[in-house]
């Protein structure tokens, strides 16, 4: 962990916290911090396993934990999550099993998707987490269609469409925001702007003053939020969700974060990031910012932190052990699920 003096301190007061999280604010923050610890431990462990050749690929969400954990806590079970690239932790906070997720990272026989996707592309229907695609932006208009269903059936729930800064240049960002606004649908568009689309900085992605400002063209209120300030993220989400749930139509939130790792395990950011980027990211590390605030207000003690760390280490170690003990997917799963099991459409080469 980086030296504490290097982070921008969070400015919330305990009474701000009470206003945001209610009388139980201390326990909400403890829960949030536990999830952020798990996310941090998991990312570090998986990046190491990738380097050891034990998993094929990994894309970390380090730096984005405040957004993911706040989303997990603010969303409701009847909501649906359409992930962008780095929202895996959202599924876990919403109740997805860490062990099952880890089976998907190892693409083994116990991965419910039978190892068909690269690591970090989970599907978790039980917690309404839509199957993640590697294609940029396509999930945005899909979320709009699901929200249409919610509205048509008068069902409660919000469709959450996540995407990165690069996706705001893609076709479905435009189509999705436009459709959602025209039809007045319950969609939360969440842009995790980590300022890099692999090597292209956000200033080369758009000439717009912000990504949130793009909402105005569609008639969607947009707001830029410090995505590394857990209080700010939680507050912005709560407000936006209250409006969406009240039937006021879609909202766009841009979470300004810092990508603190390479794009993925296949990327070398020293080729394109300025020398001081890592330091800037560390100054806005959402985990350390919250940790420091909680220490300051007596919510974390050294013992408590060590205990939390040990708990996360154990959970990750057990999940990895289970995954490494599982066999690879059975060969006959290769041709399953192309079509419905009731269909005879599949033909041609089979193993």
């Amino acid at each position: 962990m980086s030296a504490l003096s290097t982070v921008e301190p969070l400015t919330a007061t305990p009474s701000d916290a009470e206003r945001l999280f209610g009388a139980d604010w201390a326990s909400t923050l403890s829960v949030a911090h536990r999830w952020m610890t798990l996310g941090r431990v998991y990312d570090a462990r998986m990046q190491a396993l990738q380097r050891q050749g034990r998993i094929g690929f990994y894309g970390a969400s380090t730096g984005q934990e405040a957004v993911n954990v706040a989303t997990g806590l603010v969303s409701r079970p009847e909501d649906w999550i359409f992930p962008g690239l780095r929202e895996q932790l959202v599924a876990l906070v919403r109740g997805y099993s860490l062990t099952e997720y880890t089976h998907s990272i190892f693409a083994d026989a116990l991965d419910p998707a039978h190892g068909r996707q690269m690591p970090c592309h989970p599907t978790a229907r039980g917690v309404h987490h839509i199957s993640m695609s590697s294609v940029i932006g396509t999930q945005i208009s899909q979320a709009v269609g699901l929200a249409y269903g919610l509205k048509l059936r008068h069902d409660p729930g919000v469709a959450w469409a996540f995407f990165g800064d690069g996706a705001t240049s893609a076709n479905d960002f435009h189509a999705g925001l436009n459709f959602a606004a025209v039809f007045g649908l319950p969609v939360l568009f969440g842009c995790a702007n980590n300022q890099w689309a692999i090597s292209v900085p956000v200033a080369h992605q758009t000439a717009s003053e912000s990504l949130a400002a793009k909402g105005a063209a569609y008639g969607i209120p947009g707001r830029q939020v410090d995505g590394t300030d857990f209080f700010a993220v939680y507050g912005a989400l709560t407000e936006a969700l209250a409006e969406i749930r009240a039937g006021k139509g879609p909202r766009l939130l841009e979470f300004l974060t810092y990508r603190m790792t390479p794009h993925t395990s296949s990327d070398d950011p020293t080729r394109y990031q300025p020398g001081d980027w890592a330091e800037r990211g560390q100054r806005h590390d959402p985990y350390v910012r919250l940790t420091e605030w909680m220490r300051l207000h007596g919510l974390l003690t050294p013992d408590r932190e060590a205990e939390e760390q040990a708990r996360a280490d154990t959970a990750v170690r057990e999940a990895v052990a289970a995954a490494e003990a599982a066999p690879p997917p059975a060969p006959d799963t290769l041709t399953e699920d192309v079509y419905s099991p009731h269909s005879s459409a599949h033909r041609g080469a089979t193993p």
Partner: protein
Amino acid sequence: MSELTIVQAINRALHEAMQHDPNVLVLGEDVGVNGGVFRATEGLFKEFGADRVIDTPLSETGIVGTAIGMALYGLKPVAEIQFLDFIYPAFDQIVSELAKMRYRSGGQYPCPVVIRTPYGGGIRGGLYHSQSTEAYFAHTAGLKVAIPSTPADAKGLLLTAIHDEDPVIFLEPKRIYRSVSGEVPDGDHRVPFGKARPVRAGDDVTLVAYGAMIPPTVEAAEMLEKEGIGAEVLDLRTLVPLDEEAVVRSVEKTGRAVLVHEAARCCGFGGELAAILAEKAFYSLKAPIARVTGYDTPFPYALEHAYLPNAETIAHAARGAVRGG
């Protein structure tokens, strides 16, 4: 039974499906108030309302992406793409998402979207209102591809598509939308996928076609009959699933195959059929397999009559197969 044109039969199928199941809805450009530019959705808006007959903004990727989200929620969206030529902005959604959703989720997220779209030439539509690119979709695992050629099949295949658990690309032969009419069974008439329609029997040569190529293929068979050549005509109805058995069985009987489509020849579906016949009916073949197809050019405007297969070019290929040369 009712006497209907193809476009009326499609309209009837949509109407009955929407009456029967409140989850069925229609979305696309101009499909609501206007009833569709070909009038396939005529009357639906009035009966079922704007919530279920949705005039969308002009974006094919938005239409298909939205339809995918609807299907994920358990609705039965029937999306209309105004012309197959305009489907390409949605190609990413169709190929990357729709076709793969069930597979990549391990069966957790089936995605039964129906995409209806008029295809094909012969209507003076030029490059962008005439294409026949069914092979792109047949090539993509996870999609089914249906192409009716009669009013009864238009209704029956569309109802099967709407009840199917998988995504279906439903290609409508717009050239014969109104020129072909016929008896259409009332009620829940469904035509199963993967069963070719034997159009006429013959012993000397098998003509395989689908969609708007059926009328000229039948006309060719009638010409050949007068010349003493018995031509069997098979209408594939669906390319995926394909009734491989019917094609192979027929060619085993006749020993000759002429494969007809208006799509360009290179990597057209006829190539796939030829490969199957080479693999499975090779020892029955008495003559080289012949393909009668569109040219490997963009679709032309003034010369479309030269581009498209017709009864004479189909019959010519069949004569060549039967008599040699």
